[in-house]
Every structure is written in structure tokens, then in C-alpha cells.
């Protein structure tokens, strides 16, 4: 393998965990074949973040265009880097940036692509990836051709433990001709409640069926001394505010107890709650992925269970 190009993302002045994961595996793959690791990073703050990253070269794109994330600017810079360096493998995290840039970069550079990668390994002479498909219900082992772009689901393997001192190269930021970022908005803080601070979350999903049934979840949360949270479809349906959403595009929570009620466990949801201390899942589909991260589970109807459980808890308290 020649060069592994890793698109780095920074958070709070440091490389994101997802980027550290890419660096660890990228280094392993490069080392096995005498290849090198190059990081592509954006913005002035990236320089400090990647100073001791385990890479041979770090290209820092700097200038007005990268003060905040702009898909057009980032893609132009990456396309130029890929064109110039001809990497054998391009790795991105399956974040908004990876969803934005992975496929478009692959298409404009006529490179093959593997999305939703959860494992990446060498088997004899072939590089293979496992891709998570069908909402996490199935996996596909895919041959990764030379030059491929691969987007990796964060948390798929441990982050790099090693460090290095990459040679820093500067690259001026391309200009944005067609795309403008007007305003960056921080996460809605708290809303009526801050679900990241709750010890007990009663989290509801599509299985709730009707917004009128939210009352059952509220009553259960009240009996438990907890707070109601939810999966994405409940927010998209307008039943609960975005501040209550758990998952990739919502909040990451680590409560003492996470009740997943009528939540199937799409990968995007699991990303936000899998580290809860105790997970109890109730879903009518016994094959729902939520049962793979839950400690305890049942396949009863949540609309029957919620009032039955509330009644028991209230009876016990009373």
C-alpha cells in the first residue's frame, strides 16, 4: 500500500475520537506494507491538534475559507490533494463531513467507494472492509480496490494509542464560489430539560405510534424520577423538541438507566446511548438491533407496558 490519506476532524482543539480511530487503523495498514500516513486537516486550530498525531505528513489547509466547515471549500482542497498525491486509500469518518465529501470526492475522482465501514483489514493480498447495511441488520464484506474512498462509522474500533511528529505542510484554502455558510448554531442547549444530565431516561421511538401516547411515557418518567427522551423519528414527526433527541444528530447520553421503548436501534441512535450504565429495551421486533446493546429486553407492546409499570411503581411508592 502506498499512501493512506486520512481526512481529520477537530473538536475543541483536538483531533476527534473518530479521527484517532482512522489514524490507528490507517497506520497499521500502512506499516504492514511500507506505506505512509498523511493527514488532511483544516483551519488554524488544526495545527496544534495534529502536532503529535501518528502520521508522516499533515497537510493543513488554511485561510478565510476554512474558518468554518464549508463542503465546497473542503472538497476542492481534498480533490487537489488526492489529485496531487494519488493515495492508495482515502479514509473519512461517517460524520456529516464524511457524508458530504466521501461520495462526491469518489465520484469526481472516479474512485471506488465503500460506505458505512465497521471493519477494515488485510486478507492475503486484498484489503477488505465490512460495511454495515440494512439499518445494521446485515453486514457485507467488500473488497476495497486500490485508490478507494472509505467512510468509517465512528466507534468501530479503538482509537490510536500511538503518537508521532508529522511533517506539517501548508496549503492555501480554495475560495468558495457557490456555497456560503451564513451562520453556525450551537446545539440547542437544554430546552425545557437537559437530557445529558438525567440519571434516568425514558426514551421513546416510532413504536409510540401517536403523540397522544406521550402522556404514558411522561407518567412513567415521573414515576421513575426520570426524563423523557426520544429517537430521531419522534422529533421529525414534531412530537418532541430536538433538545430531547438521542443519537448521532442529537445528544450523546450516559445515564444510569436508559429505557428504550419502541426504538429499533438504528446505528445512528445506538451511537448516542450505547454507553449507558443499564439499558432496558422493549420492542415488538425480537430481531431489533437495540437488543444487541441492551442488557435486558422484552417484546411486549410498550403501550401496555408503560401504564402497567407506572402503576406498579406508584403502588410501591404509595
Amino acid at each position, binding site marked *: 500500500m502506498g499512501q493512506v490519506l486520512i481526512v481529520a476532524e477537530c473538536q475543541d482543539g483536538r483531533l476527534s475520537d473518530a479521527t484517532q480511530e482512522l489514524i490507528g487503523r490507517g497506520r497499521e495498514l500502512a506499516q504492514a506494507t511500507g506505506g505512509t500516513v498523511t493527514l488532511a486537516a483544516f483551519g488554524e486550530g488544526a495545527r496544534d491538534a495534529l502536532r503529535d498525531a501518528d502520521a508522516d505528513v499533515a497537510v493543513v489547509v488554511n485561510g478565510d475559507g476554512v474558518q468554518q*466547515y464549508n*463542503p465546497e471549500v473542503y472538497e476542492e482542497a481534498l480533490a487537489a490533494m488526492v489529485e496531487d498525491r494519488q493515495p492508495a486509500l482515502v479514509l473519512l469518518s461517517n*460524520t*456529516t463531513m464524511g*457524508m*458530504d*465529501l466521501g*461520495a*462526491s470526492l*469518489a*465520484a469526481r475522482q472516479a474512485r*471506488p*467507494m*465503500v460506505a458505512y465501514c465497521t471493519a477494515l483489514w488485510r486478507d492475503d493480498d486484498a484489503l477488505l472492509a*465490512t460495511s454495515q*447495511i440494512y439499518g*445494521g*441488520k*446485515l*453486514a*457485507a*464484506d*467488500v*473488497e476495497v480496490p486500490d485508490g478507494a*474512498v472509505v467512510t468509517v462509522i465512528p466507534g468501530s474500533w479503538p482509537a490510536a494509542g500511538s503518537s508521532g511528529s508529522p511533517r506539517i505542510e501548508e496549503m492555501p484554502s480554495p475560495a468558495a*464560489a*457557490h*456555497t*456560503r*455558510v*451564513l*451562520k*453556525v*448554531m450551537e*446545539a440547542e442547549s437544554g430546552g425545557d430539560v437537559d437530557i445529558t444530565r438525567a440519571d434516568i431516561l425514558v426514551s421513546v421511538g416510532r413504536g409510540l405510534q401517536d403523540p397522544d401516547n406521550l402522556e404514558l411515557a411522561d407518567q412513567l418518567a415521573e414515576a*421513575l424520577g426520570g426524563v423523557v427522551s426520544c429517537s430521531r423519528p419522534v422529533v*421529525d414527526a414534531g412530537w418532541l423538541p430536538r*433538545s430531547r*433527541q438521542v443519537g448521532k*444528530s442529537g445528544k*450523546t447520553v450516559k445515564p*444510569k*438507566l436508559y429505557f428504550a421503548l419502541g426504538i429499533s436501534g438504528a446505528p445512528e441512535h445506538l451511537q448516542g446511548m450505547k454507553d449507558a450504565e443499564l*439499558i*432496558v429495551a*422493549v420492542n415488538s421486533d*425480537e430481531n431489533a438491533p437495540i437488543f*444487541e446493546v*441492551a*442488557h*435486558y*429486553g*422484552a417484546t*411486549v407492546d410498550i403501550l*401496555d*407496558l408503560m401504564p*402497567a*409499570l407506572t402503576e*406498579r411503581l406508584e403502588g*410501591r411508592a404509595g
Partner: protein
Amino acid sequence: MKIAVLMKDVPDLVEELEVEDGALPLDDMSFVPSEWDDQALEEALLMKEEADVEVTAVAIDTGDVDNMLFTALAKGADRAVKLVGDFSRTLPNRLRARLFAQYCQAQAIDVVLTGVQAIDDLDGQIAGLVAGLTGRAHASVVRDVHIEGSQVTCVQEYSGGKMAEMQLAVPAVLGIQAARKPPRYVTIAKVRQIQKSATLEEVEAEAGTAPLVTVRRIYKPEAAGHAEMWGDDVDAVAESIVRLLEDKKLLRS
């Protein structure tokens, strides 16, 4: 302004997914519109309510997509186009993207909306692929799309609830995460009525070639763990939960 909504149907996850010889027997499965494409269609129809736009639903004839397209017409799309040719259910996204890209360029589509992802797009998401092939401005994981003159504005979601308001010059491609409202419902009777009065436009298309990947096998992943299951009796489950919470000292005293 012309909006195209690129749609595809995918296996219905409500059904049990059975793998045979390392592959999915797609011919035996039932298909439903990809839920994110449904969101993209809804967003386009909402845009139509507030600006002078023509909405065209576009799908590739890889099986029975007629019902999906007639449903789009019943919901309010102005036109429905089926790209026809020798296409199978297993048509990779890279080739799908080529077909969609050719159509969008030939028809001078101003704004392309499609789902941010689909459950089976292991070789890349359609929005990014079409954008890369056509050289159009693009953004994925977006919602709240509005037309403002020759621009579109939208909100792009980042991880953890952070987001950005963006403006893109048309022609543009957007990967829709969610519509502003839940996708509208139309009755089967209304779809049938449309089937009698409207026709799907058929456009001959050829996929050509694209850099593809080889799938060695598809399988059910081995679960890293599994919940201890409590069965299906509501009272017994409620009792088990109370006992567990007592053990873990999670009940209010």
C-alpha cells in the same frame, strides 16, 4: 425553477431478512420507498407550496417503481419520470448515480433533492455521487430547504445537535435528512385514481461504467452481545423491571 426528487425503493425492513448463499434473495422480497427519499419528496412538495417550482419525481426502473411514482404524483408532484433500460434490482449506486446525473444534466434541473442515505447504499450515497458527477454545489444531512431567487438556503446538521445555515447557488444537490413536516399520507384510492388519469414519463437511459466494488458475502452480523430477554407477558415484564431497579438501587425510596 425545476426540482427533481431522486427516489429508489429498498427492501422492507419490517420483513425478516433471510440471506441465501451470501446474498439477499431480492426477487422474493417486498420493497418500499427509501424513507429518506420520502422525506426529500415531502420537502420538495413543501417548497412548491411557497415558490414557483415544478417538482419531478425520478426513479430507475429496477423493478416495480410505478406505484412509488404514482404515489408521488398523488401527493402533489407535477411529473413522474421512470428511467428505463436493462436494469436489475442489484444495480449499484454508482451506476444509479450516473443515470440520475445524466437525467439532471439533460433536463437542466435546478435543485436536486434526494434522501441523505438509503439502507443499501454501501458504495456511496446518491446525493454526493450525483454532485460529484455533475460538479454541482451540494450539501448533505440537510433540512429546511427554501428557494431564494437563484439560491437555495438550508440547514445542515452536524453531530451532537450543532448546525449551520447555508446558502448554495443553483444548480445544487441536497441530501435530505428530514422534511419540515412528516411525509404526507395519500389513500390507496387516490393513488389508483391518479393511475387512471396520469402517465409516467419514460426516458431511455444507459448506465455505462463506473468504479465498482465487489461484495464477497452478505450476512447477519454476529451480535457482540444480546439482552437477557424477559418474555412477552406484560405483568411479568413489569415485575422483572421493578425487581431489577430495586437490585440496582434505581428506585426512589
